Structure formats: C-alpha cells, structure tokens
C-alpha cells in the first residue's frame, strides 16, 4: 500500500452563477488541514457546501479561487482523472454493464496494468470485502449494501492517496447503515488511508471520525474531535446541530483559576471556561438534556411534556418562560412526573458549557 497523503485546502472558494445571473457563494474561503491517514468528516445541513468542497477535492468542480493540496501538490486545476483520489458515491455509481470483477478492475485497466496484477489485486480486495463469490454478478443482481461494498472495493483497489465518500450510506436502511459504517471505519483503520467523508447524519460522523468539520452556509463553523464538538461547541449553531441542546441565559459571577462561576437565575454553578470572561458579563450557556438532574431542588418547574422512551424518560419543562429539554437515564424505579405536575431540577456539576 502506498503511503497516505495529507489534504490541505487554502482559501478555497466556489461561487456559482445562477441562471438569473445571481451569485451564490457555495464555499466561502475555507481553510482546512487533514493529516495523512486521518478520517475527516464534513457535516452540515443540506446546502452548506460540504459536497461542493468534496467535489472540488475530487476535481469535479473547479474552485473559483484557492488551492487544493493533495500531498505536496496543488491540484486545484487538474481534472479528476489526474488526481490521486478515489470516490465512493451516494448511489454507488457502479457500471451497470460490467460485472463486479470488471467494475473493480476498471481503474487498473485504464492504467494499463498487466493482467496478472489486475487479477491479483482485484481478488485481494474481494477477499478483504468478503465478496469473493460475487465477482461474476452484475450490479442489477445485488442489494444496495452489496453494491456499496463493490463501490468501496473499486475505490480501494486503486490505493489512492485520498479516499472520498459522498454520503455513501444514505440510501441504505438504518440497520445496514450502522453495520456498513463500522465496516468502513475498520477497513479504513486497517489500510490507514486518508479519508474525507461527507454526511448530514451526525451520528455517523461521531461514530466514524477522527475529526469532524461542521459546515454551515459555505463556512467551517468548527472542527475537532467528536468529543470536542459535542462537549465544547463554539456557538449555538454547532450546539444545536450536534445532539440536542438547551441554550440558557446567565451571568458570570466570578473567575476561579481556569473555572468560571455562572449565575443561572440565582443559582451558582462552577464550570470550565474556555475563553476569557469578565465578572458581570452576560453570557449564554449550553446544557445538554442529560446534564439536567431530576430531583435536585435548585429550580421548581412545571412539567409540560413527559414521554417514556424505555431507556430514558424525556421531559419538557417550563424554565423561566422557555422550554427546557430533560433526559433522565434509566427511569426504572424512579418517580415519573406527569404533565402538569411540579418537579425539582438542577444542573450537573461542570455540565454547563459557556458559549
């Protein structure tokens, strides 16, 4: 296997001119560094520019401005066939007139590799994907999951410097999706290939990635490990986009070393401060539903919604005029409050994240 390559994007910009002669900035001067062998996922709502960015890395879109480094080389103006990338498509994009073997062999044949080498490499990849028995099948005779495995094999066999994924699992059903994402991650780690993955499914992004890149309206909102993104979102967009979040108002009461003391409607909480705050400063803070403790008596609130979900009990309560979502884990044996009842709540120590 060749060594994996790094991918650097420098001031990358893509502006489309619509038929009405309007300018639409799909990707707005983004900078991104992906290390060799890293699994990076671009995550965002539809229209955020993630797919356009991926297609600029692959070469299907020419950047309006900026540089795309794959390894040491700026490939921004090169056509897709001249780049060291291979892509796995959302709808598999298998060649319907070729069987599995020929689909996988296609790129090697284009490179005019010797027949024996093609055969050996295709068979090795088929074995790795546990698809040896499928080599004579044509795409029309396979399920979506099988087709997507062929699509992955077809990309992997090229031993590209960078492997690109364009929402590859979104056409599969939920169960298969979880199975396939584990499989892709395992293969990626075994092979050690640099991978850039585009999805709008946050769970997928969390489960697979070394690095998650949250995009919105053509810019990168935040990048980091899944933990960083979930626990320390930099703004309300990221907080709301990843997982569920309650955003509440508060005031900085004091600073104590690396911690800040936050006053939420009269109650003080200590939590870590990742930025510099001044005493008396008005702030907004994120509290995840699972960070709210039922039974504490910091606040007495009215239950508006109470839903039993099995492994947890979900509440919606009126918290100073705004809705607060609460998720109480393992409700078996605990008091269940009904809509209309009063209950006491509080926040878990250090669970508040100040924005």
């Amino acid at each position: 296997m060749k060594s994996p390559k790094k991918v650097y994007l420098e001031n990358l910009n893509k502006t489309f001119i619509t038929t009405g002669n309007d300018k639409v900035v799909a990707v707005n001067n983004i900078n991104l560094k992906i290390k060799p062998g890293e699994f990076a996922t671009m995550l965002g709502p539809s229209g955020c520019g993630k797919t356009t960015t991926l297609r600029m890395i692959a070469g299907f879109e020419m950047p309006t401005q900026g540089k795309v480094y794959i390894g040491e080389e700026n490939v921004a103006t090169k056509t897709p066939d001249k780049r060291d990338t291979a892509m796995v498509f959302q709808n598999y994009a298998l060649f319907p007139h070729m069987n599995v073997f020929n689909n996988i062999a296609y790129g090697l044949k284009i490179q005019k590799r010797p027949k024996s080498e093609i055969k050996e490499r295709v068979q090795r990849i088929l074995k790795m994907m546990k698809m040896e028995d499928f080599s004579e099948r044509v795409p029309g005779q396979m399920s979506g999951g099988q087709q997507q495995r062929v699509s992955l094999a077809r990309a992997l066999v090229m031993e590209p410097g960078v492997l690109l994924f364009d929402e590859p699992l979104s056409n599969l059903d939920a169960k298969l999706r979880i199975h396939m994402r584990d499989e892709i991650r395992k293969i990626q780690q075994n092979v050690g290939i640099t991978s850039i993955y585009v999805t709008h499914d946050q769970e997928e992004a969390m489960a697979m990635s070394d690095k998650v890149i949250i995009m919105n309206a053509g810019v990168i909102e935040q990048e980091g490990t899944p933990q960083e993104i979930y626990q320390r979102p930099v703004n309300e967009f990221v907080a709301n986009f990843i997982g569920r979040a309650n955003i509440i108002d508060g005031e900085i009461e004091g600073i104590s070393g690396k911690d800040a003391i936050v006053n939420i409607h009269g109650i003080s909480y200590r939590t870590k401060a990742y930025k510099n705050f001044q005493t008396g400063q008005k702030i907004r803070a994120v509290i995840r539903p699972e960070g709210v403790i039922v039974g504490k008596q910091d606040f007495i609130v009215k239950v508006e919604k109470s839903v039993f979900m099995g492994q947890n009990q979900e509440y919606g309560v009126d918290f100073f005029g705004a809705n607060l979502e609460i998720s109480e884990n393992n409700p078996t044996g605990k008091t269940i409050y009904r809509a209309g009842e009063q209950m006491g709540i509080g926040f878990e120590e250090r669970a508040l994240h100040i924005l």
Partner: protein
Amino acid sequence: MTSKAAYRKLKIKTELDNIKKNMRDPFLTIAIIGVFIIVFLFVLYPLIKILKESLYHQNQLSLYHYKEILRLSSTKEILWNTIYLGLIVSVISTIIGFLFAYASAYLKIRSKKMFNAIAILPMISPPFVIALSTILLFGRNGFITRGILGMREANVYGLHGLVLVQTLTFFPVAYLLLVGLLKSIDPSVEEAARDLGASRGEVFKSITLPLMVPGLANAFLLVFIQSIADFSNPMVIGGNYTTLAVQIYLQGIGNYDMGGGTALAIILLMISVTVFMIQKYYVGKKSYITVTGKASRARELIDTPKITKPIYAIALSLSIFVGLMYALVPIGAFIRLWGIDYSFSLNHFRYVFNLGMKPIKDTTFLSLIATPLSGVLAMIIAFLIVRKNFFGKSFMEVTTMLALAIPGTVIGLGYVLSYNTKPLVLTGTAAILIIAFIMRSMPIGIRSGIAALQQIDPSIEEAANVLGASSTKVFTSITIPMIRPAFFSGLVYTFIRSMTLVSTVIFLVSARYNLLTASVMSQIDAGKIGVASAYSTILIFIVAVVVWTMQFIISRLGIDISDIEG
C-alpha cells in the same frame, strides 16, 4: 393435488372473482366489452380478412398467392428494396439522432430549444412535406439542381432521394428516444470512471456508449419499422424504387389483385410485427438505465470547445437545412412556376379554391369528430389496463400496442376487404374514415395515458371510491382531471395525425369524401408541384390554427378547473 394444478385452480378462481367483481359495476363491464368489440372489429378482423384472402384461391385453402407473388423477380426486388432502404435509413437516422441527443444532453451549447423544435416538426407536419421540398430543391426543376447547378436531367426519384427524405423525417424518432435515455444516465456513473483515471474519451468509449447500446438498438428498430411502413414518401419520391407498402396499394387497388396484395400485406405485417416484438420484448427490456437509477444531480455539461464546436456546427447546419425544407413548401405555393419563373403568384391557391373546398372541409370536419372520440377511448383503455384486473387484460394491452406496428397500408387494405360487403358496409362513408383516424392515433394516446396513470397513486382513486363515488364518477371526477395533460396532448396528437394521415385512408377515400392528403398526392403525381404546395400550406395552416385554438381553450379550461378546485 400437485402444486401446478392447485396454482391453475387458484388462477381460474381469481379470474372468476375478477369477472364477478367487475359485473357488479356496469360501467366497467360495458367499457371492457366495448373495447374488446372495437379492437376485434377494427384491428383483428381486418387482419384476419387479409390473411384469409391471401390464403384462398378459387375457394381453396392454398399458398397460391404467395407462390405467385414470390415467383415474380420484381417481388423479390421490392422485398429487398424495402429492407435495404430500412437498414440504410435506420443506421443514418440513429447516428444523427444520437448526435443531436448527445449535443442536447451533454454539451454546453446554445440553440438547444431550436434543436428540439426541429425534432418535433416532422411529427406535426404532413409526411410528404420533406419529399415535396426535396423535389423543389433537387427535382428536375429544382432550385439547387437546375437553378444553381444548371442540371437539365436531375433525377431525385429513387433510393437516394428516399434515403434523404426518410432520414430527415425519421431521425427525430431516434433523437427523442435517445435524448431521454442519455438524460437519465446517472452522471455519477461517468464521474466514477473519471475519478478512477479515465479521460473523457475513455469514459465515452467504455461507459456512455456501452450503456447506450440497448437504446441505440431500440432507436434503430423503431426507425426501421417506420421506414418499411412508410407509404407516402416512397409513393411521392420513390420513382422506380418500389417498396412493399407502395406495392400493396398498387397490387390491391391498382391491379385489382387482392390475392397478391393481401399476400404482400401479410409479408410486410410479419416483418413489422417481428421487428416490433424484438424491439418491445427483447431490446426494450435490456436497458441499463433503469439499473443506474434516477440521476442524483444535474450533469456537468461539457464546455471544451474542441468537443462542442464541431458537434454544434453539424447539428446547427442540419437543423437549418431541415428548417429550410419546411419553409420551402409555403414559399413554393406562392411561386408562379418553380424552376422557371420565380415570380410571386396566387395562381395555385386560386386553382385549389376553384377545384373546390370539399377536401379541405371534409378533412377538417372528420378530424374534429375523431379527435375527442379517440382521446376519450384512449384514456378509458389506459385506465382499464393500468387500474383494473379483468379477463383478457394482457390481450387488450398487446393488441392495442400492436396497432402501432401494423403498417397503415396493411390496415387500410384490411378495412377495404372487411367493410365493403354486408353485414357492415362502411367503405365510402365518413364513418370508416373517422374510425381509421381513431385507430391510427389511439395507440399513442393509450401510451401517454398509461404513463400518466402510472405516476398517480391508485389510493387517490380509492379514496374517492371510499367516499362514495361510483367507478364512473371516479373516472370522470378524479382520474380524467389528474391525467388532463396526457388527455389533452392526446387530443392534439389525434387531430394532427388525422389531418396528415395518408397510408390507411388512401384506400378509403371516395368521391363522397376526399381528403387533403390524398389531394396533395394526386397533385404531385400529376406533376403540379405548385398546387401540391398550396394544398400542403393550407393543411399546415389549418393544423396550426386548430392546435393553437385547442391550446388556448385548454389553458382557459385549466384556469376554470383550478378556480373550481380553489
């Protein structure tokens, strides 16, 4: 009991249950029986009559007529002529059609709307317009042959003229089919190949073209069927190059040799139906496009000048040529004596109006009667095929589709044989002309009706049913309004088709009812190209006015209906 017997029993029971269920619904029963009677009387019975006539000699069952007709060396030549012409025209038409389709689906070029318009033109114009303008350009007194090149003995009649005329007439068939297929190839399949290192040329060779092979075969066969069934062009411009469709007419009507004529008709029918079956059930099913699924995103159009410029140049010049061919006929109608005296004159129109307005009135009147009848019938049949289960459903589906493959001359000859004796004497009446119009236009209406109905969730109709509407009420208040676009485009198509129909009705015109198309034919035959042009111009004018009026009414109707709904 064996499982096979059990299966058969279950099947019979299902059919019986279907019949019982349908019997409870008088509208359905009447509709189903009515359609079967119509199909039998005007599709099957005429064909049976032809077959019977061809197989009887002096009241004896024999192959005499086949032997007689095939003994003639001229028949073998005609047979070969038909197939040879079909092959050449199909190859060239498929290539040109593909070029246009590729330009439209893959290239970033201007004038795509014009290419589309050019492709639709032959479908809304009388079939011999191109033949007529070819004579005006390349005939003995042709503008190019005589006027520019100064040739005295130019002969456009024959194979070369036919190839030119048929290609220009039929390549749109290939284009429309191929452009649909090319547009539905998922661009990501080609992107995948690019991504794996294939250059643009390699992608075309190894992906696009192989994916299109079934489509190309399909286009080839469809054009072939049209070419061998074509009557008017070989009649007008074939010269000594006779084809089967023409010979059926000459043998049956010209020589009063019904035995020979019917034998030829059966031969032509067998070729057509065989090719149609291959197209529909073998090649048609072998499509890769359905495998790739719906296109996930719009295709990045190719804007490399090296590729776009030459293709654009070819497509543009071809379009301009075709456009000119159509413009030439109205021009020719106002020229005093084409090839000799190019001054403006209304003589041809004066001649036409002196000869009488009857064919003009008859054609328009009969077409206007046929139009709603064909439209409604087509929608009823489409509805029955898509939505209902009944005994003989697949038979109905196959025969109504097969009507597409039956050459017009064959069915025309069948009508003459079937309906000039008792019990049902229809020849010479307006009825048989109207029936011919309906039967020749209905298959297309059924097709678009089926396509439209398949897009609509049956639960919408079921909802109306559950709310208390009878099946008649469901059909008129829910189904028809939902497939309105298909219904109205069916109306427009029927009218155009009726106004311009030649092959079937050439057998059926009489002193009582003469048609415009037949008048054009006889004027060309008499060498009166100017008068023929004038007739054609009037025909095109009426078609344009009526189609425009229909569209106007439809748009008004559309507003009214949506007002009620709102």
